């Protein structure tokens, strides 16, 4: 007979407020195999832990059940307590009588009954638990940062400064990301480029950082401490070593296409550097629009390049690299406005998004920072800003708040007034949200010192009339319809993840929410970790964020990555899959369903009727396996068993809870 100890936690009033603790103790004592049952106000406290340790020794307990909170909270605490008494930590089982019971029930009698059932279930599982042992796995002490925006740059710099090598992979031809497109930053009106470019230079010159721009991650294998990543370094068609950055090639290039960096407001060449401070300052050839690649005529760039850096024969390179940790900082996009016909976006050049406004007002932008109407290159007088275009809009857009629009629009009204003191800004808003240091003050400055007119209400229609734009809206505070003759309409389109976010999620087995933002491991307590051990999140790929938040999260991610890189070995979680070869039929469905590529096939020999025959069975790489259990579910003969969550244990739990 087992000697199981049951320790029941009050969690102050969290559990004891709804569950009759005395009754649970009493009922627990009746469960076969239970040698001891006791309670304490805070089991996770030092006194509670000591109580567990001392009772294990005094009562000679061989299994422990702690009925308290979610194992995600205190399982490690109680495992340590058991270990200090000489018990294998994996002989501790938790019954979650808080999240699964007291917090979701009001009726004391029912809640108590359920708590008893949960304890009974945990006892059933514990009585079938076996000792498990961790393995030491070596750590590849290098990091990968995905995305070269401000978050990625910051994470890379922090890891590199701590003395570890970092590969920074960026899909576009330069690092800098969204922040490079911005003009000033709220609420201080620092010049975005002035504070960003030094970081870009730091990143490119740091001895521990390797930049891979115009590159994408193609495949990820492995596990925390030992990722193997295939990076596709796309052909640039310009030799990075030879190029002097003189710019002759794009001066002479005859093909023009819309500039991504300038949000399509101007055109760039087919061979181009996105902006003057680009890092690296080496052009790329955009194959889809290059005359040579499309029509096999031209090669002008090659002819004019004195450094002989243009190499039209260049091919994509596939690099295989190893890392101990990965920081994902893939950033955001702006919601497409096809669904929002009332704004006529795309139909008139003076109807623009906020990001286009940033380019118009930026000194390196299409108007040299003069902020002119795209239609006639005249200064605007009346500018209407529309908030929440696609944000807080369940029916056509996104239900969430994009968080930064209120503040950047306040900034835009201030910048407009600075350029043209005679101008007038109108802002249509739902609510003005200014939670942040100095944010409200900045907003008041827009309203009080810069006379921006804030209209609480929505815009019904924007349409061109003569050389103006007529904006029809409702001021819901006065209840009146408003008509404004505007020179420019600026739409604060919602922030969305990059379109390839689902693909990145698949590569790294990350969770995403309904909008494809990556999911953190815990919304409060593990905000930079993911459910894939060793993969961390930084910046707007996880949810709408402003620059300081993205930077702070990047440093948080870097410190988490360093937590791995600073160790020579990691202890593996022993709760992983195991194959019973005598049961394995060799169908290998487990290989197909394993999200971590942890299963391979192998051939074994066995004797059948005196003859040695070979057959194929599955084999688990315990270091790669994350114990998710997908294989166990797919395995018909029950040959796949997750240690710590074995089929025997789960069936025992089902039987116990159905009693």
């Amino acid at each position, binding site marked *: 007979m087992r000697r199981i100890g049951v320790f029941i936690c009050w969690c102050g009033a969290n559990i004891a407020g709804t569950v009759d603790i005395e009754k649970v103790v009493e009922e627990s004592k009746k469960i076969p195999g239970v040698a001891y049952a006791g309670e304490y106000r805070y089991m996770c406290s030092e006194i509670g832990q000591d109580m567990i340790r001392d009772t294990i020794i005094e009562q000679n307990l061989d299994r422990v059940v702690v009925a308290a909170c979610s194992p995600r909270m205190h399982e490690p605490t109680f495992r340590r307590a058991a270990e200090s008494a000489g018990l294998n930590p994996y002989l501790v089982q938790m019954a979650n009588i808080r999240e699964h019971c007291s917090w979701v029930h009001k009726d004391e009698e029912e809640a108590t009954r359920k708590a008893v059932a949960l304890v009974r279930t945990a006892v059933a599982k514990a009585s079938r638990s076996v000792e498990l042992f961790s393995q030491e796995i070596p750590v590849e002490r290098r990091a990968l940062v995905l995305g070269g925006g401000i978050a990625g740059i910051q994470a890379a710099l922090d890891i590199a400064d701590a003395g570890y090598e970092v590969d920074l992979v960026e899909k576009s031809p330069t690092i800098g990301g969204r922040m490079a497109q911005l003009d000033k930053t709220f609420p201080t009106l620092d010049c975005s480029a002035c504070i960003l470019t030094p970081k870009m230079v730091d990143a490119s010159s740091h001895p521990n950082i390797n930049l891979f721009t115009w590159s994408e991650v193609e495949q990820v294998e492995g596990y925390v401490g030992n990722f193997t990543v295939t990076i596709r370094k796309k052909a640039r068609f310009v030799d990075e070593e030879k190029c002097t950055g003189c710019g002759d090639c794009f001066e002479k290039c005859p093909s023009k296409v819309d500039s991504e960096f300038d949000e399509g407001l101007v055109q760039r060449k087919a061979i181009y550097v996105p902006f003057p401070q680009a890092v690296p300052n080496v052009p790329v050839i955009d194959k889809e629009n290059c005359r040579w690649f499309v029509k096999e005529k031209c090669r002008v760039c090659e002819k004019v390049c004195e450094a002989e850096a243009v190499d039209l024969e260049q091919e994509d390179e596939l690099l295989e690299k190893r890392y101990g940790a990965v920081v994902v900082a893939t950033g955001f996009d702006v919601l497409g406005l096809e669904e929002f016909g009332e704004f006529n976006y795309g139909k008139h050049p003076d109807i623009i998004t906020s990001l286009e406004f940033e380019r118009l007002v930026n000194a390196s932008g299409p108007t040299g920072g003069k902020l002119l109407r795209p239609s006639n290159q005249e200064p605007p007088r009346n500018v209407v800003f529309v908030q929440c275009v696609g944000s807080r809009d369940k029916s056509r857009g996104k239900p969430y708040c994009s968080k930064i629009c209120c503040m950047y629009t306040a900034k835009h009204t201030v910048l407009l007034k600075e350029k043209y003191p005679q101008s007038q800004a109108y802002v249509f808003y739902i609510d003005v949200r200014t939670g942040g240091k100095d944010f409200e003050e900045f907003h008041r400055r827009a309203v009080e010192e810069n006379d921006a007119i804030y209209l609480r209400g929505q815009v019904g229609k924007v349409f061109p009339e003569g050389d103006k734009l007529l904006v029809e809206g409702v001021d819901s505070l006065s209840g009146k319809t408003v008509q404004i003759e505007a020179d420019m309409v600026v739409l604060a389109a919602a922030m969305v993840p990059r379109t390839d976010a689902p693909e990145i999620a698949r590569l790294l087995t990350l969770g995403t929410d309904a909008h494809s933002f990556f999911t953190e491991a815990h919304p409060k307590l593990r905000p930079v970790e993911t459910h894939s051990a060793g993969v961390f999140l930084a910046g707007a790929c996880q949810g709408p964020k402003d620059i300081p938040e993205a930077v702070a999260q990047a440093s948080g991610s870097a410190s988490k990555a360093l937590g791995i890189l600073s160790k020579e070995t990691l202890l593996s979680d022993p709760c992983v899959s195991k194959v019973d070869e005598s049961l394995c039929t060799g*169908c290998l469905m487990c290989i197909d369903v394993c999200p971590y590529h942890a299963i391979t096939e192998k051939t074994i020999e066995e004797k059948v009727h005196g003859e040695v025959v070979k057959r194929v069975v599955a084999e688990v790489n315990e270091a790669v396996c994350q114990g998710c259990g997908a294989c166990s579910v797919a395995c018909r*003969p029950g040959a796949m068993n997750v240690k710590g969550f074995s089929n*025997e244990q789960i069936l025992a739990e089902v039987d116990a809870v159905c009693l």
Partner: protein
Amino acid sequence: MKNLQDTIREIAAQSLARGEVELVIGWEKGDLWWQSYPAFIEEEKEADRLIWDPLCVPNLSRYLLQELSEMDEKKIALFVKGCDALAFNQLLQDNRTVRERVVLYGIPCDGLVDPSKLEREGLDRDLQEVERDGEELVLKAAAGEEKRVPAKDYLYDKCLTCRYPNPVAYDQMLGETVPVEPEERFTGVRKLEELDYEDRFSYWAEQFSRCIRCFACRNVCPACSCIKCVFDLQEPRWLGKATEPSENAFYHIIRAYHVAGRCVDCGECSRVCPVDIPLQELNRKIILDINELYGEYDAGVDPEQEAPLITYKTDDPAAFTES
């Protein structure tokens, strides 16, 4: 038909004689008029035991499991009808057979006779042999009497809905291919779907209550190819030993899920059930759901095709996660 039977005997004898294979699996006449047994022929002279008639229903592919595992590296010849070939492909996909070790002789099949349909009309009296002649069955009695009846009326239901009467996998096809004119196979499922939850539950509860847990459905199923079945394990004991209603339901539902996405719709489960539980409908419901969710998929047609239930695509429908 006789011609095909002669061909079968000839081929079996030849391939054994030439040493191409060490075993031929075909059919032989059973003890009673309606029985066909699997025949395991290892010697040339035994080849004349083989038969081919409209009663050769057993699916021979499954016997490969045993035979191949006991004979390392040796080759086996196998006669396959349309449904048997699907089964063979499924075994291949499940890694339970080796293509190189099997020589497949395909037999286009125009449907097999359901003895119970003959019995129901008393046509089985003194019956000794059944032959197919075009659209008719020739029933030969002991006294040499012959009776002709329309074949279609006496075929298995599963044969009437068969979509692959011509084998999809073979090394050599014996005989002419037959026309493919299946009746709608999901009629039964649709009818059950129309029942409300309570009625559907009691329908299946009633069906499962008859189960005697003989495991015939499992033992005949080409998708039930595990070396050791979960239902036979002592620890953990997934299934209680008692044939009580809940355990019976549990058994059949687990089995349906175990073959989900791999069931070739051969209908053998329903055929062998001694208490006539319409098990094929259970599997067809899952086939229908798979078709509707992930697009048409026929298990066993192409062993190289990715099976929908074990492949994940980012655009897979996820209706169950949307409220």
